[in-house]
C-alpha cells in the first residue's frame, strides 16, 4: 500500500549504477554546503587566536557580558514584532483578496508580487527617507499639515525597525496564506453554515482553526526571518542604538582587529535560537499535513459577500499598496532626482538627472551589475538543478537516509546569511583554498542559502507527479537519465521556472552574506547600495535603487512571459 502512494520500487533495479552514484553525489554536495561550514563555525568559535586547543573562552566572554542579554531581548522583541505585523497584515490581505468580493481583486493580486521583488536594502533606505525623525517626508508632511512641533514618527527606534521589516515581509505571508486558503475544502465552511453557524462564527470556529497550522508555521518563518535579517538592523538599528544579534556580529567583524571569537560565539547563539524555530516549524508542518483533508486539489473557495463593506475593504488594499509600494518608490525617485537631499517642496524646482549619470558612469556600478547578474543566474540554475535531483531521491526512492538528505537541504533555512558568511570565513581560514573574495565563494553561499526554496518548490511539484508516469517511461525502455530528462523535467518545468525566477530575485537582493564575503573585484549591486548609504551618498543610493528595482521588475516580467511559452503547462 505504501508503494502505491509513494516511492517507486523500480527506481533501484532499473538503475544499478546511477542508483547509488547520484544519491551519493547529492549527499556529498549537501554535506559540503551545510555540515562542513557549520562544523567550522562551531570549531572556530571554540578557538582563540594565538592559543592552542579548544576553549570556551569566547563564550565565557560574550555570554557573561550583560550587553549580550540586551541584544537577546532586542532581537527577540524585534523578531516577534516583525512576525506579528507581517502575519496580521499578510493574512488580512489574503483573506480580503482571496475570499471576499472586494472590487479589483484580480488586479491587486498582480500588484502584490511587486514588493516581493524589492530588495530589503532598498525598502529599508526608502523608509529612512519616509519616516526618519529628522528628514522623513511623512514627518514633515504631518508636521506641516497638523502644525506639530515634534515629528510624530521615528524610524530610528525598535518600533521603526519592526515597522520596516514587518511591511517588507508581509507580501510573503500574503502568498503563503493565499495558498493555504486555496487548499482548504470550501465545503468545510459550507457544512458549518448549513449547520446554522453565522458567518463570523464560521470564521472563528472553522476557518481560522483550520488555517491555524499555516498561520503558526508562517509566524515561525517570519520570526526566523526577522531574527536573521540584516538590512534593517544595520541601517536603522545601529544608528538607533538598538543592537540585535546580526548587527552585533557585523560590528564585531568591522572592528579592528576583527573579533572572530565574538562573531563566532554570537553566530552559534543565533543559530541555536533559529534552529529551535526551524525544528518547531518542522513539527507544525507535519501536523498540518495530518490536518490536510485529502485531495490536494485546488478549490474555488466561496467568496463572502461584503455588501457595503466592499469599499472600506478596498480602501484598506489601496492604503496597503500606497504604504508598501507607491510611497517607498516615489520617495526614492524623488531623492534620486535631487542634487542634495532636503525634505522640502521647493526642491521640486531643482530636479536633475545628474545622479543617474554619476551612478552609471562609475566603473563599480557596471562591475557590480555584471557580478550580480552572473551570480543570480548561476545560483538559480545550480540551486534548482541540485534540488530537483535531491527532491527526486527524497520523493521517489526508498533509499535509506533519504530523510537526512531532505533535512540537510532544508537546514539552511535556519542559517542566517551573516552566520553562514562567518562560517565560510572560518572554513577558508582552515582550508586555504584561494577562493576568498571571488565570485565562487559567493555562489557557494547563495546556493546554500537558497537551496531550501528550490527544495520546497521541487518536492511539492514532484509529489504531484504520479510515479506511474516515470514507471511508464521505464517500462518503455528509457534509462534513468532519459526518463529524468524527457519526463520529469518537462513535467516539472512550470515549477522549475517559477523556482528559478524566485531564486534569481533573492540572489540579486542578497546582502547579509555578501557584505562579509565580497572583495573589490566581486562587489555586487546590493553591497554597493549598502556601502554608498553607509558612506552617506544618499542621492546616488536612491538613483541606483530606482535602477535596480526597475530592472528587476523588467527581468521578472520578461522571464515570466518567455517561460510561459515553453514546457508543459501544469494542469
Amino acid at each position: 500500500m505504501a508503494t502505491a502512494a509513494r516511492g517507486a520500487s523500480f527506481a533501484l533495479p532499473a538503475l544499478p549504477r546511477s542508483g547509488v552514484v547520484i544519491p551519493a553525489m547529492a549527499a556529498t554536495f549537501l554535506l559540503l554546503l551545510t555540515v562542513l561550514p557549520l562544523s567550522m563555525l562551531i570549531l572556530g568559535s571554540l578557538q582563540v587566536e594565538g592559543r592552542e586547543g579548544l576553549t570556551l573562552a569566547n563564550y565565557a566572554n560574550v555570554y557573561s557580558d550583560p550587553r549580550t542579554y540586551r541584544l537577546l531581548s532586542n532581537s527577540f522583541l524585534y523578531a516577534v514584532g516583525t512576525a506579528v505585523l507581517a502575519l496580521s497584515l499578510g493574512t488580512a490581505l489574503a483573506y480580503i483578496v482571496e475570499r471576499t468580493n472586494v472590487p479589483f481583486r484580480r488586479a491587486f493580486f498582480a500588484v502584490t508580487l511587486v514588493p516581493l521583488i524589492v530588495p530589503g536594502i532598498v525598502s529599508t533606505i526608502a523608509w529612512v527617507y519616509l519616516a526618519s525623525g529628522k528628514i522623513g517626508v511623512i514627518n514633515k508632511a504631518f508636521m506641516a499639515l497638523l502644525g506639530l512641533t515634534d515629528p510624530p514618527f521615528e524610524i530610528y527606534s525598535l518600533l521603526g525597525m519592526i515597522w520596516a521589516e514587518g511591511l517588507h515581509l508581509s507580501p510573503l505571508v500574503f502568498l503563503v496564506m493565499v495558498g493555504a486558503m486555496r487548499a482548504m475544502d470550501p465545503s468545510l465552511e459550507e457544512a458549518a453554515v448549513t449547520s446554522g453557524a453565522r458567518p463570523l462564527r464560521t470564521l472563528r470556529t472553522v476557518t481560522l482553526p483550520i488555517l491555524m497550522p499555516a498561520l503558526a508555521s508562517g509566524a515561525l518563518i517570519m520570526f526566523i526571518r526577522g531574527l536573521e535579517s540584516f538590512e534593517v538592523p544595520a541601517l536603522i538599528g545601529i544608528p538607533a542604538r538598538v543592537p540585535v544579534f546580526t548587527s552585533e556580529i557585523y560590528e564585531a567583524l568591522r572592528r579592528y582587529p576583527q573579533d572572530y571569537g565574538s562573531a563566532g560565539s554570537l553566530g552559534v547563539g543565533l543559530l541555536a535560537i533559529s534552529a529551535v524555530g526551524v525544528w518547531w516549524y518542522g513539527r507544525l508542518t507535519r501536523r498540518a499535513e495530518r490536518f490536510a483533508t485529502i485531495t490536494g486539489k485546488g478549490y474555488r473557495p466561496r467568496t463572502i459577500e461584503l455588501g457595503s463593506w466592499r469599499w472600506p475593504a478596498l480602501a484598506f488594499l489601496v492604503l496597503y499598496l500606497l504604504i508598501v509600494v507607491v510611497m517607498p518608490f516615489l520617495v526614492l525617485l524623488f531623492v534620486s532626482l535631487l542634487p542634495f537631499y532636503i525634505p522640502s517642496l521647493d526642491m521640486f524646482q531643482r530636479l536633475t538627472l545628474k545622479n543617474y549619470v554619476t551612478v552609471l558612469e562609475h566603473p563599480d556600478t557596471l562591475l557590480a551589475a555584471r557580478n550580480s547578474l552572473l551570480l543570480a543566474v548561476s545560483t538559480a540554475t545550480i540551486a534548482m538543478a541540485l534540488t530537483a535531483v535531491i527532491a527526486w531521491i527524497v520523493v521517489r526512492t526508498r533509499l535509506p537516509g533519504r530523510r537526512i538528505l531532505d533535512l540537510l537541504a532544508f537546514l539552511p533555512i535556519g542559517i542566517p546569511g551573516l552566520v553562514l558568511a562567518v562560517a565560510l570565513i572560518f572554513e577558508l581560514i582552515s582550508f586555504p583554498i584561494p577562493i576568498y573574495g571571488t565570485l565562487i565563494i559567493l555562489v557557494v553561499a547563495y546556493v546554500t542559502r537558497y537551496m531550501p526554496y528550490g527544495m520546497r518548490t521541487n518536492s511539492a511539484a514532484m509529489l504531484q507527479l504520479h510515479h506511474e508516469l516515470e514507471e511508464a517511461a521505464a517500462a518503455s525502455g528509457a534509462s534513468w537519465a532519459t526518463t529524468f530528462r524527457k519526463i520529469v523535467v518537462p513535467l516539472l518545468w512550470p515549477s522549475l521556472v517559477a523556482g528559478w525566477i524566485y531564486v534569481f530575485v533573492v540572489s540579486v537582493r542578497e546582502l547579509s552574506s555578501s557584505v562579509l564575503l565580497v572583495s573589490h573585484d566581486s562587489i555586487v549591486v546590493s553591497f554597493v547600495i549598502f556601502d554608498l548609504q553607509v558612506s552617506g551618498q544618499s542621492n546616488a543610493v536612491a538613483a541606483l535603487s530606482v535602477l535596480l528595482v526597475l530592472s528587476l521588475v523588467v527581468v521578472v516580467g520578461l522571464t515570466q512571459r518567455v517561460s510561459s511559452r515553453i514546457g508543459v503547462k501544469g494542469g
Partner: protein
Amino acid sequence: MAMLTVASLRKTYTTDRGGVRAVQGVSFTVEDGRFYTLLGPSGCGKTTTLRCIAGLERPEGGTIQLDDEVLSGDGRFVPPYDRDLGMVFQSYAIWPHMNVFDNVAFPLRVGRARATSAEVRKRVEEALALVGLEGLEDRPAPQLSGGQQQRLALARALVRKPRLLLLDEPLSNLDAKLRERMRIELRELQRRLGITTVYVTHDQGEALFLSHRVAVMHDGGIVQEGTPREIYRDPSTGFAADFVGNATFLAGDVVEDGIAALGGRVRCSMPKDLRPGEKGLLVLRPENVVVRGAPERRPNEFGGKLEIAAFLGDHLDCIVAVGDTLVRARAHPSVQLRRGQDVWVEFPVEHCVAMRDDGWRPRALQRSFGEDEE
C-alpha cells in the same frame, strides 16, 4: 410535516472547467417524508439546484418554499444558517480540528436555539447511535475511515432533527462494496425517520434503489420525473432512456403497427400522436430481449450474429449484430451460446412501446473503440 416546493428556479453558474451553464426553470415538489432524487450527468445543474435549496447559492429567479415558509424568491432570501436543514457533502466536510463528538455537537451549539450541555450530549449520542458510530465520541475526526466519516457527516446533518435533509453525492467517494452497504443503510434510515430528503447523484442504480421519486436532469432542466419504475419503464425522452439503464435504440419511420427498422418492421404499440410517416424511436431494455440459438418464427424475431457473450454470474450479457445494429440482450446464464454463432433475437410485443424520436442516440454501444467517454 415538511413539504419542499421549488418553482421556476433559475441560476447561472460556471462549471469546474470554466464553462457557463444555467439552471432554467426547474420546478418540483417533494412531499412530506419522501426521498427525492435529482439524477443526471455532471454539469446538468443538479448540484446547483441542491445548493440553491441549501441557500449556498443565491438563485436568480424562482421560489423555494419549505411548507409555508419562503426560503428564496419574492425578494426574500433566507441565509443558509437560518434554514432548518441538514446537509451531507460529497467530501463529507468533516472538520479535522474537532473530534467526533464536537463535529456532531456543532449544529446544536451554534444554532439559534442553543441546547444545554446535557441535552447536547444526549442528542449527539442518539445521532451517533443512529448511524452506528456509538463509542467513538472522543476519536479525532481525521482518524476515521471513509465509511465512518460518511456516517459522521450523516449524524451531523441529522442531529438537529431538521425538516429537510440534503445529500450531495454522498456515496461517490466510497468503494463499491461499502457503497452498496451504505445505500441500504441510508434507505432504511430515511424510511424509519421519515425525513423529507433531496438527494443528488449521477448513479442511476443509486437513484432507483433509494428514491420514492426521481427527476432526470439534463442541460439545466428536468426532462422527466416519476417513480423509479416509471422512469425506467416509460422513459419520455431518448436521453432519459439512455441515462437510466442500458438500452438498444431502434429508430425508424412509423409504419402501420410499428416502425421500419432492422431491414423490416418492428411491431410495437404507439402513442396516439405519433402518425405513420413520422420518426419513431423504440427503446429496448436488455432484459426484455430474448436470445435463442434457433428461430421460433415468432413476431418481432430477427436473425443476427452473436458478437459478444460474457458470463456475469447471474446472467449472460449478449451483444447481437442484426445487420448494422448492435442489440444488447440479457440471457439466462445456463444458456449455451458461443461467440460468432447465428442467433435469433425476439422483442416481445408487450414490451415494445415507441416514442417520438427526439434525435438522442446512446454513446454506449459502438462497433469500434472510437472515442471512449465516460
